[in-house]
Structure formats: C-alpha cells, structure tokens
C-alpha cells in the first residue's frame, strides 16, 4: 500500500516534469530568440488574428475615399486609407488592429480625442511595439524633450513616418536608400520650412535638391536621426568641426570636387581651432565665442568659398567675418588667419621660411651642443680612468 503511494507520487512527478519540458519547448518554438521585434510582432499577429478582423475587413470601409470625421475642434480627421499606398508601404503585412488595438468590433468605440494632434499624440507610442530601438532613441531627442515640456507641435514618430504610407527606406544592410536620402529635407521641411528654404539655396542643399547629389549632407547627417540633439548647446558647437570633418577630410568624396581635405588640421593648428579642440577635449560644455566652421562658413546657408557674393575667398567677405568678433580689425588683419593653407613658398611664404629656418637652426645648434657635450663627457671619463683630476 505504502509502496503504491510512493509509486504514484513518482509517476505524477515524472508526468509533471515531462509536461513542463514539452511546454517549455513549445514556448521556445513559437518565440524564436533570434527574431527581431518587428518580425516577432508579425508572427504573433498572424496567430492572434483568429479573433480579430483582417485588413481586408477594415479596408472594405476605410478604403473608400473621402471618409472623414469632424472632431470637436472642428478639424476633419481623415479615415480613408489609400490601399495602393498602404499596399506598397513598409507596413503592408502589418494588421490594422496591431496599432489600432482598441478597434476590433463594429460599430467602433467612440473616438475620445478633441483634435487631430491629440489623436496623433495618443497613437504614436504604439510604434515602440515594433521599433523599440528607434523609439528609445527619440526619448533623448530635442523633439521629445519639447513634447515632454508640453509643446505639442514637436515632432513625434508619425510626423516623419506616416504609418499608412511610409515606404521602405533602408536596404538589406540597414543602409539608407539613395531616394530616401533625397527626400529627407522634404520631411524636415514640414515643420522647419524656413530652414529648408535657406538650405536649398546653400551649396549642399542646391546639389541635393537640384542635381540629386547624394554626396552632400542632408539634415540628418549633421543633426542625427531619432536622437536628434539640441544644436544650440555648447557641446554641439564644440564638436561641430568634427561633424564637418566627417566629409571634408574624406578624400574619396572631396577629390571629386577638388576640395582640399586639410581643412580640419589647418583649423586645429590655428588659435581658434586649438582652443575649441582643447575645450572639446577637456571641458566639452564650455561656453565659448571662439569660431567653429559654421561661424565663418554659415550654418544652413553655407556657400562655396568662391561664391561671388558671399564667398570667403573675397577678402572683403572674410574681413566682415573677422569683424563680427574683432570689431577693430583692419584690412590686413584677415591675413593673420592662413585661410586653411599650409604655408608654402606661394602661400604665406614668410611663415613657410620661418618654419624652414627653425627646422634647420634647431638641429644645428642643439646638435653642435650635443657634440661638444659628448666630447666633454668622453674626455672626463678617460681622465677619471687615468686618475687625473678634472680641471
């Protein structure tokens, strides 16, 4: 009897452990660790869809043009999904209910929002469900800090990426597709149109918007994407030369346009550049009025240096740039700055020859001293060995 009881317990234990293992294996199977969050959601969606309507059910109504809803604010809220756009978007295989989680029945629950903006602000956090990395990056951005401070105009996910029309913008390796690059400034222009108007007239913006040149920087190359920082901070100012240098010291890009790549080292070698570089290294938050690249060359309005109206190659333009910080500067003052030239017999010859002089003078003097001192040491060692008293 007692033995039977033990047997029964043992059998039960084996049974429980066995089922547990099977259950674990099953969980592992449906949750492959390697899958990206986005794929995982789609997989889960497929399984979870049994009880939810699929997209064709939603598009049956919402595919019709002109569906709008007037919100209490008086604004219309478009309820139409252009199925041709949606069908070619990055989200074509995502279920509507994946984002519109509160809508699974008909008639739909009442819309509680007052305005279009409120609707977007309530919806965008759902993006983190699949795009956690990008979403988390935005939390650090200047836009999110504005949102947190109550500025509802600041950009949220859906302002840049319309979830119903967002095309695929990256290749298999995560690199940005050329066409996507070309469209970046248009996206930022939705809120920053004044800056865009300036940018498109700049040497970079004109090349991008008129020639489709993807070598030039778009907004995100300087400002970043998702974790866009505040460009008015001291830290941004101090590290900005490195930002420009990213392309301007890259011979592969610069050689195409005959632009020298020694712009950073010549800047760092001079008073201004030395100071800002050391600030950046030692006290990155330092307030400074020492010029960085954009103080002379412009920010969004960067022009070619040989631009007849604004170019810094024009001495009068350079003088004006100097006088912004050195109001008393005279016409020969701008030559105190070697305009990114490395001294040579044709450019800044005096500096070149001073350098040459010391290049030979220092080894000559120190070398002669060294020879004499060495001869003296040797002589004294010999004398000491011979026991002669030095004199």
């Amino acid at each position, binding site marked *: 009897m007692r033995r039977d009881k033990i047997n029964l317990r043992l059998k039960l234990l084996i049974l429980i452990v066995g089922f547990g293992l099977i259950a674990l294996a099953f969980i592992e199977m449906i949750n492959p660790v390697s899958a990206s969050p986005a794929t995982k959601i789609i997989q889960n969606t497929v399984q979870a869809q049994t009880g939810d309507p699929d997209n064709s059910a939603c598009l049956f109504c919402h595919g019709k043009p002109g569906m709008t809803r007037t919100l209490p604010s008086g604004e219309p809220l478009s309820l139409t999904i252009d199925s041709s756009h949606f069908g070619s978007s990055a989200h074509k295989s995502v279920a509507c209910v994946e984002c519109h989680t509160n809508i699974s029945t008909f008639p739909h629950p009442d819309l509680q929002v007052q305005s279009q903006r409120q609707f977007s602000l309530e919806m965008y956090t759902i993006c983190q469900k699949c795009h956690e990395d990008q979403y988390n990056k935005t939390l650090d951005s200047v836009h999110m800090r504005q949102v947190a401070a109550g500025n509802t105009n600041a950009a949220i996910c859906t302002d840049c990426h319309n979830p119903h029309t967002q095309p695929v913008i990256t290749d298999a390796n995560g690199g940005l597709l050329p066409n996507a690059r070309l469209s970046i400034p248009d996206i930022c222009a939705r809120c920053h149109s004044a800056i865009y108007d300036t940018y498109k007239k700049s040497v970079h913006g004109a090349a991008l918007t008129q020639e489709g040149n993807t070598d030039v920087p778009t907004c995100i190359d300087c400002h970043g994407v998702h974790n866009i920082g505040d460009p008015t901070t001291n830290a941004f100012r101090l590290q900005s030369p490195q930002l420009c240098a990213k392309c301007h010291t890259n011979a592969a890009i610069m050689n195409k346009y005959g632009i020298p790549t020694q712009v950073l080292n010549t800047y760092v070698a001079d008073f201004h550049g030395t100071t800002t570089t050391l600030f950046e290294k030692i006290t990155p938050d330092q307030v400074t009025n020492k010029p960085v690249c954009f103080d002379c060359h412009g920010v969004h309005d960067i022009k070619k240096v040989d631009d007849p109206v604004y170019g810094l190659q024009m001495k009068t333009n350079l003088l004006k740039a100097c006088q912004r910080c050195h*109001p008393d500067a005279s016409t020969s*003052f701008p030559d105190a700055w070697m305009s990114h030239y490395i001294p040579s017999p044709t450019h800044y010859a005096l500096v070149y020859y001073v350098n040459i002089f010391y290049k030979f003078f220092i080894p000559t003097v120190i070398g002669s*001293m060294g020879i004499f001192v060495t001869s003296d040491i040797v002589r004294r060692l010999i004398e000491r060995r011979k026991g002669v008293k030095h004199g």
Partner: protein
Amino acid sequence: MSKKAIMQQPDATKEPVHKFERFHWTQRVEHAILLTSFSLLGITGLPQKFSTSGWAQGLIGFFGGIETTRLIHHVCAVVMIVLGIYHILDIGYKIFVRRTRLSMLPGLQDVKDAFQAFLFNLGLGKKRPQMGRYTFEEKAEYWALIWGTAIMAVTGFIMWNPIITARFLPGEIIPASKAAHGGEALLAVMAIVVWHMYGVHLKRFNKAMFTGKQTETEMLHEHPLELADIKAGIAERPVDPKTLRKRQVVYFPVAGVLAVAMLFGTYGFISGEKTSITTVLPISNPVTIYVPQTPTPIPTVSVPVVPSGTLSWDANIGIIFQAKCDLCHNASLPTKGLSFATYVEAMLGASDGPVIRPGDAANSKLVILQSAGGHPGQLSPDELTAVKIWINAGALEK
C-alpha cells in the same frame, strides 16, 4: 669680488677654506625668478605648440584648461619682461656708475677657447683653455638667453596684440610670429636641457648660483684667469665715494625715467588691445525654427450641392445619403439593419424600426440622431435642413 674677500684670503700654505663670492644675492634672486618664470613658460607653452598630442592635452588639463594655461603663460611672460627691465637697469648701473669690467662681452678669445676645449676633448690638444670670470660656455648661454628673450617678447607682443600689429604690418606677420615663437621656444628649452643641465649640473654640480660662493679650488679649475686677477688686485675697479655719488646723481634719474618708460611699455603690451569681443555671438542669419508648411488638405468627396426646388429621393436626397451614409449603411453592410442603397430600403429602416417618418421630421430617428451630431457620417447643416424639409413634405421618391 669684494675687497673683503681679497683681504681675508688665507695663507698660501694652508688649505684654502676661504670662499670667493661669485654671485651677489640680487643676482641669485634674479636667477631664481628667471628659473621659475622660464620653466613655467616652457611647461605652459610647449603643450600649446603640440596641442594635438595626448601628453600636451594632459598637461593643459592639469593646469585647468587652455584658458588658465594661457593665463599662467601670460603672467610668467610679464614677470620675465619686468625681470628683463631690471636686468637692463642693473647692467646700466654696472657700466655707467661702477664701471666694472665688461666680463660678459664675447670676443675672439671665446671662439679660440671653445675651439681649444673641443680639440682637447678630442685628444688633439694638450690642455684645457684657461678662462676668466665667464667661460665661453657661460657667455654662449647668456647671450642666447638675451637673444631668445628679445625674440620671444617681440613675437609674443605680436600674438598678444594682433589687431595693432596688422594696422602697421601685413597680417601674415602674426602666423609667422607664432611659428618663430614656437621654434625659438623649442630651441631654448632644448638648449637648457643639453647645455645648461650638463654644464652646471651633470659635469659637476655647481652650487655657486645658490650659495653665491666658490672655493679657491673651484676657482682655480674653472676661472683661473679671474682668480689671478683677484690675487693681483685688478679684478675690481674701486670707485671713490665722491665720484660714485656724482655718477649716481646722473644715473638714478635717467634710470628712473627709463624704468617708467619701459614699465609703461609693458603695460601697453598687456592692455594694448581688446583682441576680440568677450560676449558669445549669436549665430549668423538666424532662422525661425518652427515654420510648419501648410498641410495637404484631407481629400473629401465632392459634397452634393444642397438641393433646391422640388425635393425627392431620385432628384436630390438619395445622392446625399449615398455620399454620407452608404459607407456603413449599404446593401452588403447594412449596419444595424439599415441600408440607404435604395429608396425602399431606406424607408424600411433599421432592424429596430423605421428611421424616416414621412411628414414628421422632428420624430424621425434619422433627424434626431443627426441633430445630436457626432455621427460618423455627419450631414452638414444645409443637408440636414434639406432632409428635414423632404421628410416633412412626405419623403417622396419621385
């Protein structure tokens, strides 16, 4: 050397316990100030010349950043300039008042001495040169210091006052001065390490600059000619008090005026110009950050013109229902059993009864619902008015 030293000179038979005064205490203080300011100038200056290397950045960080490093450099530069002014006046006193021998002046003999010393070291000469109060090594160092300080002061002034400089000279002189200042600095520091360190610290630790005194043995080895002069009593040129006072009466006012002029020049050096503005400039061409583009208007279906004249389902009312209600209330999706696909279906109403009561708009469910507002397919006020008139007129099909 002082007379006292000569008088106290011990008997030749005894061991020379007596020490000769080599440097007056004022000279030793001068040396201490020079030593301090020179070292600080070097240690704060060279990292600026090699600012891209790690050791330089480490040192600058140690000093509290580039601005503090420059401040230390500037303060030491001023100390050295003031020391230079004192030195000029002191030399002037020795030349014009005391009329001592100009023992520091270089001459052909120094070249010969240097050559002889070198040949001796190479084993090509019989003996070391016999030298006086200042050896050729010491003279070389002194005059290198004088020359170097002059170059550093001039190039330093140019860098400190670039705007004043550019008013009189081409702007290029400023980067050229920077190059010369750096080159000369490197030369000076290396010369101190090779020449001075060896000559007075390694060869034999020469404490004369700190104690001010040398023994007779030391004198005999290093400055035999001076020792001979001292013993012969011709090292000094004593001045009688009366003449001394007469010369002092002339020299002190002149030196005073010179001192004031030079100190005033130093003041100009420091405060000659405010090189640049001290406030932080706003970014050029500021732009407004938030300037939203006008959003693309949401596409809407063309709203039928509010009917006028005779109202009937076929003529005008049916089109309104097609446009606004058909989406959810159509033949294949008759939400709540209601469809507006045809007149008949519309009049049949929803599963819980008709929504249009011909002749009684006020009690028609459609009008009640639409008047409350907020229905997904909301009729415009004009459309609703037309529908009410149509219902009150009997909700006719044709």
